[in-house]
């Protein structure tokens, strides 16, 4: 079995164009002490790796690189772990090819 070279999502997101709506995150994680299994699964399932674990073991989100797919909404909105909206008009990812 060959060793998997690690994939850097940051490098992939670097190709994309964004208009960041500073101070207005369109997705919010509900404050928690211990993350639910749904929320934890986002650490891997988010295609832009927006979800990360902080040093207290809580899940945090940085939406700047979000590509607005909706995967986290499908997994986490039902359990109340996140609040999910689209960015304000004109903001967010701006696809050149799509």
């Amino acid at each position, binding site marked *: 079995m060959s060793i998997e070279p690690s*994939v850097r999502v940051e490098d*992939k997101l670097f190709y994309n164009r964004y208009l960041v709506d500073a101070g207005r995150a369109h997705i919010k994680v509900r404050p928690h002490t211990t993350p639910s299994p749904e929320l934890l699964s986002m650490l891997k399932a988010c*295609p832009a790796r927006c979800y990360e674990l902080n040093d207290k073991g809580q899940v945090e989100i940085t939406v700047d690189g979000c590509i*607005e797919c909706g995967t986290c909404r499908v*997994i986490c909105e039902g359990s109340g772990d996140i609040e999910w909206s689209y960015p304000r008009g004109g903001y967010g*990812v701006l*696809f050149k*090819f*799509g």
Partner: protein
Amino acid sequence: MIEEKFDAIVVGAGMAGNAAALTLAQRGLKVLQLERGEYSGSKNVQGAILYADMLEKLIPDFREDAPLERHLVEQRFWMMDDRSHTGLHYRSDDFNEEKPNRYTIIRAQFDKWFSQKVREAGATVLCETTVTELAQDAYGKVIGVRTDRADGEIHADVVVLAEGVNGLLGTRAGLRKRPTPDKVALAVKEMHFLPRETIEARFNLKGDEGMVIEAAGTISRGMTGMGFIYANKECISLGIGCLVADFQRTGETPYGLLDRFKRHPSVAPLIEGSEVKEYAAHLIPEGGFKAIPQLYGEGWVVVGDAAQLNNAIHREGSNLAMTSGRIAAEAIFQVKSRKDPMTAENLSLYKTMLDQSFVIKDLKKYKDMPALMHTQSQNFFLTYPELVSKAMQNFLRVDGTPKVEKEKTTFKSFIKARSWSGLFGDAFRLARAWR
């Protein structure tokens, strides 16, 4: 509040929304289309293949100025294991016709062109405007939308929800449920740029000829999923998608899956030396016929991906979107022409018309396929591709083993992996779901 009242508001400017807005405007209705992107297309993601027939019904002479990439002359289906692929290729010079049937397109560019046609037909298109919720009267009838612009409530007789797979507005208003992880796939895609001649040489193409590869097998690591490679003029769209529930269950990462697909020995030479210019992700409705929600109500209809209208088996979505958008618009026009109100009862005409079209007929045909593919993913996406690869290699490798023994080995490997009853059961279930 915008005082002006519209005959119809279309939310979203993808395939379904543009088809609906265009048709409504062509019929003389006063239409407002709202789109959250900086231009129509800037938020839209697809492979993408365009089906000419459905666009011709909207814009008969689209070939004159639409930004088309390549017309397809070849389709390859690959069943992959980690080091091989077993292919079924179909190529025909018949596809080099005056009016080709399928094209590769780049959605952001195509949708921008499509939107121009919508404007030329007389619709008002307002971009950079996110619709935040539906405006409803005291009885729950949809009377318009609220947007994120100041004083953003706008009224219309009917709202066409072409808001895409996430269907946020419909869910927020309680018109339908949020898609569940087992009913949507997450696909990730990269755009790989190469010189035109390189693409043509690597894929055996001349001029504007195009080809697409649809791939399944161990690339999805036992999950229900598919990979794709589409040749555009000067770039290759390459991606892979799997059910969200499978990502959740396995802990596989979408980008890890994509990079493994790119490194596969059958794929790597095709994109060697390319420059990647974009990375996108998108959800795809996979629930089929059984996942179709309520399609109309008091003052509203839902079309395209928001209505989960996607044929996962044939990898068709944009044509179902365009057709549902057009049919919804035609139904609205008929109700309007009779001077009838946009009630659920009157708008049920949309569903009646859609039921008679290929959209619902095709989805009905495959109504049992999603359940089969989703529950048997290990067998269909891992076990069988590996067995087929071994069988092919055993068949082709000349090593002095008598052919009778080779056949026995292959036969035994299938029985060992799936047992007699398993093999017959899979064949029976597949045939029944396909029927």
